[in-house]
């Protein structure tokens, strides 16, 4: 028996392709551990500081640049305060002293938060400890990245937060919003928001909280891609027991760049309905009889907006029938007018400190802390939950468990601060928490960075190098593919296509499942290669047939890969072919044909 040279060539080609794809699409479980990086080292943190209350921002113009601030060195005459910066996606970090002392009376950086504008200029909200109010200010980047920042006008007092409108479609592109608490307000402390159109050089303060009957607390902000701005705050309505108080978590919206906040009415909308919830207000969160404790007073709410759909998500704490303080997420599909909630946690441990973010593909992430005091000492766990279906269900994973007892710089009463850091850029979550050091000579609290993919399926490059992965842009009857980097992957979830442009046959319970899906991709030529993954991330043995106009991917969905009668999370994964060019958009015509047999030309 002989094999022709052309057959050999085809076989070899197939073999090479198989090897290439095997190396590209390394399968991984959705429970893959998050990558944890202790951003401090013996060299950058020689004084073994605790680095509490960290926050994080990712440069929207370059996802490899990440900045974190935490409570570390202060500032003084000739001694600027520090930030942490990574230019390689969080793998390595440097400490840069770029926050000049703004006033001789201020001896330290205090409450702080970071954000980037659309051009990648860093901004840092700071409270200058030692100054008399107003003592908050925005530092803005006016020079090269990594050089000293310039501080702006003074405003407010206490717990300034920060976000910047970096959305090209927004009428308020570049506007900055800094919520804070006005403890001097009458008749009760009030949630405020400061806006600035020039990076904080000049600012305008606006009251946003309803403080007529109750004091406000926990003021957080989120910006939608169309420029709408949402603020969440709580009204404190009286303590109950066990470190809890009654409260409402209310959301207000501004449609005019932070000038007015009445888009949801004069007092906003409660995200959990009319009844009050019990949430934390304690300086002893944990079990004081079994070790060190944290303070949890402004540690019970956060807000985020889906950058694609504009849906709003609010994370909050509620003590429920389980008897535990639990993390809930409320979702609004109506620009904040109405909300529906699901529980993120499982009702077995006290939980608090929620931060929430939404990735480009709609995946929702929540960072939170719970504790287990069933043993001899209290174990605090930093955890991260993701929802791939708009908050309907959650998959939770442990990031790190920690007993702060033996940790010298962990101070009972203030373990990691009032809040920590979570954001999303593209289809990746980036977070930071104050946890147990990794690889340090002295066991201590350190800022721990983590990164998790927003993809449910495990595609190796998207996990190890998340910036390589983007979502295909869908248009009627076509998809738009573009690679920002040579090794990119462009992901196209088939269920998303079914919602928008494909007529996807389903599979009723106990009914007949559809036969073959034949997906036509016209115009790929040698510019792109495509692969099909099943919901577990496994490569599907799909038939790919070249036609005169393109490629047809033909496969039969497995019966167990239908969810509620609809096709499950199959994904087309595109990578550049031999003739494909980086940063060049390609439009691929697509259509789906169902058939009782695989496609044949």
């Amino acid at each position: 028996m002989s094999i022709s040279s052309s057959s050999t060539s085809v076989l070899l080609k197939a073999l090479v392709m198989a090897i290439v794809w095997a190396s590209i699409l390394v399968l991984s479980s959705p429970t893959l551990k998050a990558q944890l990086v202790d951003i401090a080292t013996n060299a950058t943190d020689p004084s073994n500081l605790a680095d509490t209350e960290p926050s994080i921002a990712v440069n929207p113009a370059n996802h490899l640049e990440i900045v974190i601030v935490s409570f570390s060195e202060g500032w003084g005459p000739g001694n600027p305060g520090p930030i942490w910066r990574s230019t390689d996606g969080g793998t390595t970090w440097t400490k840069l002293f770029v926050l000049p002392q703004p006033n001789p009376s201020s001896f330290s950086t205090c409450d702080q938060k970071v954000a980037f504008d659309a051009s990648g200029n860093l901004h840092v909200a700071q409270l200058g400890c030692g100054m008399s109010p107003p003592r908050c200010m925005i530092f803005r980047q006016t020079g090269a990245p990594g050089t000293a920042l310039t501080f702006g006008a003074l405003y407010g007092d206490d717990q300034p937060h920060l976000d910047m409108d970096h959305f090209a479609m927004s009428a308020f592109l570049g506007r900055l919003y800094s919520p804070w608490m006005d403890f001097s307000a009458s008749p009760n402390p009030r949630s405020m928001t400061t806006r600035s159109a020039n990076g904080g050089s000049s600012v305008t303060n606006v009251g946003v909280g309803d403080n007529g009957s109750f004091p406000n607390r926990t003021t957080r902000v989120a910006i939608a891609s169309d420029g709408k701005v949402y603020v969440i705050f709580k009204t404190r309505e009286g303590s109950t027991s066990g470190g809890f108080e009654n409260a409402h978590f209310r959301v207000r919206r501004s449609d005019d760049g932070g000038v007015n906040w009445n888009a949801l009415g004069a007092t906003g909308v409660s995200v959990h309905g009319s009844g009050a919830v019990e949430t934390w207000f304690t300086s002893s969160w944990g079990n004081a009889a079994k070790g060190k404790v944290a303070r949890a007073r402004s540690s019970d709410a956060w807000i985020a907006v889906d950058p694609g759909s504009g849906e709003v998500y609010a994370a909050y704490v509620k003590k429920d029938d389980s008897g535990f303080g639990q993390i809930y997420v409320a979702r609004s599909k109506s620009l904040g007018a109405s909300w529906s909630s699901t529980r993120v946690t499982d009702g077995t441990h006290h939980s608090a400190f929620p931060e929430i973010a939404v990735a480009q593909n709609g995946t929702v992430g929540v960072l939170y802390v719970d504790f287990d005091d069933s043993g001899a000492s209290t174990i605090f766990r930093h955890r991260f939950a993701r929802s791939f279906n708009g908050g309907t269900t959650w998959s939770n994973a442990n990031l790190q468990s920690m007993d702060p007892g033996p940790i010298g710089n962990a101070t009972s009463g203030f373990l990691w601060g009032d809040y920590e850091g979570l954001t999303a850029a593209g289809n990746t979550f980036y977070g930071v928490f104050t946890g147990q050091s990794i690889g340090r000579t002295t066991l201590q609290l350190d800022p721990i960075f983590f990164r998790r993919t927003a993809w449910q399926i495990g595609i190796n490059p998207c996990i190890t190098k998340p910036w390589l992965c983007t979502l295909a842009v869908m248009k009627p009857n076509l998809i738009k593919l573009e690679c920002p980097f040579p090794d990119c992957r462009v992901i196209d979830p088939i269920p998303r296509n079914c919602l928008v442009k494909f007529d996807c046959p389903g599979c009723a319970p106990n009914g007949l499942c559809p036969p073959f899906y034949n997906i036509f991709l016209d115009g790929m030529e040698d510019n792109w290669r495509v692969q099909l993954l099943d919901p577990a991330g496994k490569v599907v043995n799909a038939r790919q047939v070249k036609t005169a106009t393109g490629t047809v991917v033909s496969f039969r969905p497995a019966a167990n890969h239908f969810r509620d009668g609809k096709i499950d999370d199959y994904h087309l994964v595109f990578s550049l072919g031999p003739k494909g060019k980086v940063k060049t958009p390609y439009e691929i015509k697509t259509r789906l044909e169902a058939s009782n047999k695989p496609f044949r030309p």
Partner: protein
Amino acid sequence: MLIRILLISIVTICFSAANAQTRHPGIKRTSHTTPKPVQPRRMNTFQILTNPNLWRQDFPVVLAQLPALQTAGESKLLVFPDKAVSGTPARSADEAQNQRRKIENAMEQVRTNPTPLARKLMARTTQRSLKPDIITKFPEDDSARVAIDSLQLFPAGMRVENVRRQLGAPEKTTRVVIESEGERRPLILTLYSYAGGAVVFAEADIAPRPGAVDRVILDIPAVIAALEKEVP
């Protein structure tokens, strides 16, 4: 002629944590002890408080006011490089003003009718007039305090390492959180205790650069009790 010689001053503070809670319930203090192997040198309170490598020119003047401060009900004194501050937080400027008057009267009383220890301490220093004043918002907790400023008490930026070199390892190292009414970053002090806790050197986590002595906390009754035995 009214020679206001002396002294005055001061401050101080202190009180027990329980007392602090009573008078200023907004301030919460918690602490945790970090066990450390200690090998303190045998140095008594008097030796610590007269070590020329730790203190600057006005410190003996302040030290001489301790009996008056005790008379005025103060139990602790916070000694900063340039000022001495009552350890007792007041809820209002009026309350602090009352305490200031009380301290001033006590200082005058001790000056005219000194105790044996006060006499010995005053004899060891150049007498100068000290005027207690009010801090309306003490930065770390926004409380009102009695204070005497414009002093040179110990070198600004003095390193904890220097204290260790002079006095040996502390007998105990603890941490304390000092919170304000609001939500801003609390002050966390690492306390290095000497002489049975009579003299505590404190390092603040809020500082331009770590490792400096932020303040020295004197336990007034304990210091006085020790000095009564130790001052030659």
